[in-house]
């Protein structure tokens, strides 16, 4: 898999290409494996998690699978999970809300949500999400009933966690694609909740 010279613009790229060549020559990786991994990485985005959420809202059997084994539920929708850490799913219900943080670094369910947004990795979010989740959630403009129990999940080790938000009112009869389009990255982290109205808080689209 020799890389064309015009792609070696920087020393880092040259080093990377040389490493790939050596790994291929030694039979450690094959070109097809690399291509499959790159395709899986490119396909990973919040839209994948949103498809899972929408399916769970319309299919109780799928919802049960998703809560029992997030990895199998992702694979059931064709999302590649090979090599990904096990996926746990946290179900929001009326009166119960989950917020995910990784205080140690930036553990994130990349297979189903893509790259973490820049703020997820910030020291401010990581410090405040565990100590003052109500304050953080309020700053996103998210309205929770005052007596809602807030469970903060610090993703510290080998699991990755996503939130299954509650299906918003006013979406009766919506099809799965329309429901999936409502679900944003922040809804599956827990800083926001999905809403069919135009005034919903928009999670950042930025990645970093």
């Amino acid at each position, binding site marked *: 898999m020799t890389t064309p010279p015009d792609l070696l613009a920087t020393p880092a790229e040259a080093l990377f290409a040389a490493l790939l060549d050596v790994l291929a020559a030694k039979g450690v990786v094959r070109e097809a494996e690399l291509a499959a991994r790159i395709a899986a990485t490119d396909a990973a985005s919040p839209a994948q998690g949103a498809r899972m959420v929408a399916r769970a809202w319309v299919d109780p059997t799928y919802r049960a699978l998703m809560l029992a084994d997030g990895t199998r539920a992702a694979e059931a929708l064709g999302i590649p999970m090979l090599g990904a850490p096990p996926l746990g799913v946290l179900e929001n219900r009326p009166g119960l809300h989950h*917020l995910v943080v990784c205080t140690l670094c930036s553990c994130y369910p990349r297979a189903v949500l893509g790259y973490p947004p820049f703020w997820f990795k910030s020291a401010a979010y990581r410090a405040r999400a*565990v*100590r003052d989740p109500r304050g953080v959630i309020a700053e996103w403009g998210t309205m929770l009933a005052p007596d809602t129990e807030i*469970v*903060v*999940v610090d993703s*510290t*080790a*080998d*699991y990755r966690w996503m939130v299954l938000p509650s299906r918003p009112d006013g979406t009766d009869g919506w099809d799965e694609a329309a429901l999936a389009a409502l679900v944003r990255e922040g809804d599956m982290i827990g800083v926001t909740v999905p809403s069919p109205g135009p005034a919903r808080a928009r999670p950042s689209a930025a990645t970093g």
Partner: protein
Amino acid sequence: MTRLGPGTRVIVRDDWPETRGEAHIRTPHYVRGREGVVVRHLGNFPNPEDLAFARPAATVPLYHVRFDPNTLWPPPRSADVLLVEIFGHWLEAR
């Protein structure tokens, strides 16, 4: 080590290996020495404290442990429950 069942009250070891040399630790500082309750056994994984240094890594149990935020930080209370993944060798049953 003995597998800890759901509902077991545990104390997180008040240990600071990072003060004794190079260390890679997945136990947040804010729960060390604090009491929690095992919610469930999440699975068994190679010990990241060895994996990080390319040492042979024993497979160790990982638990979801629930903490009362009131026992971790001064008021005002903001979270109701804090769930943290903690490896078994950091936990001692009460």
